[in-house]
């Protein structure tokens, strides 16, 4: 500590140590809050149509377009160390009708940021202004964890590597979340209760069957009649 340089080095060294200790404590503080998320999801409408994966492709595949209702309460996931919660709905279905559901595809997702991470969202200036205003004066905003979607259109259509999807049996929609912290462990929907962190209540739809292929030729007829 005899010269300025040595003092600067020592203070900086201890500063980094303190930083890591505090960061570790912040990461551990995640466990001090209960998590008891709940959600209900149900299928509203399903269609299977034929299409091409992209404009230049000659391959024809079957796509399932799904509309669903989602009601979810994830407000207990928002603490000071929550940067964002990634909510996603996936469809799972079996490859053959007797087997387990071994295919899974995300059909819809959304990112819910904490007010502390609002400025990082990739949205237009008007939407950003609205978002920041919605949490004015709040450091966390658990009310954002409540979603109520009616007849929501899927963002991503279901496909299959085989190109066949019509009349698939035993399809199920599931709600999942991924909590992204400011520092520490990333966490996903737990499979079993873990201390105060409970599994998702509900969050699984009834099994349903994808309908038969929709005939394109019928559409103009419908329009005229």
């Amino acid at each position, binding site marked *: 500590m005899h*010269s*300025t*340089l040595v*003092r600067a080095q020592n*203070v900086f060294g*201890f*500063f980094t140590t303190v*930083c890591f200790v505090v960061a570790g404590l912040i990461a551990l503080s995640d466990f001090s809050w209960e998590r008891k998320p709940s959600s209900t999801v149900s299928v509203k409408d399903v269609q299977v149509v034929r299409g091409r994966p992209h404009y230049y492709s000659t391959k024809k595949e079957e796509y399932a377009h799904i509309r669903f209702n989602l009601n979810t309460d994830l407000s207990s996931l928002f603490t*000071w160390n929550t940067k964002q919660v990634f909510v996603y709905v996936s469809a799972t279905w079996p490859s053959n009708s007797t087997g387990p559901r071994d295919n899974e595809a995300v059909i819809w997702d959304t990112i819910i940021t904490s007010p502390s991470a609002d400025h990082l969202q990739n949205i237009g200036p008007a939407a950003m202004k609205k978002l920041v205003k919605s949490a004015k004066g709040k*450091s966390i905003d658990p009310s954002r964890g409540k979603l109520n979607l009616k007849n929501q259109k899927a963002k991503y259509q279901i496909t299959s590597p085989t190109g066949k999807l019509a009349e698939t049996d035993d399809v199920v929609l599931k709600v999942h979340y991924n909590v992204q912290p400011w520092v520490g462990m990333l966490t996903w929907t737990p499979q079993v209760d873990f201390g105060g962190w409970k599994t998702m209540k509900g969050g699984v739809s009834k099994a349903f069957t994808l309908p038969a292929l929709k005939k394109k030729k019928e559409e103009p007829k419908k329009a005229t009649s």
Partner: protein
Amino acid sequence: MADQLIEKVRDAAEGQIDFEGQRFAERLATALLSIVGFISFAVGFFLQDIKLALFIGLGGAALTFLVVVPPWPVYNQKPVHWLQVPGSQSAGQGIIVDGKVIS
């Protein structure tokens, strides 16, 4: 001339403090940073505000740097009194190099 200039710059840059001052600075840095870390976590935890915790931590660290790093007079209150070299004519800090006294 150039040597003297470098010496002056070295003195300014080196910022020597006395032994008591070194002990004091060391303890002060440890205490200040620990307290700042604790306050930053406690305030952030109870107000549920991670940005506030970050600003308290950074502000406190900046303050600690300001208090501890420069050679403030507080750290130089007990300068070391060297014993006189026995039999030396030139009292004080004078050193004889090549027959000339350099102060």
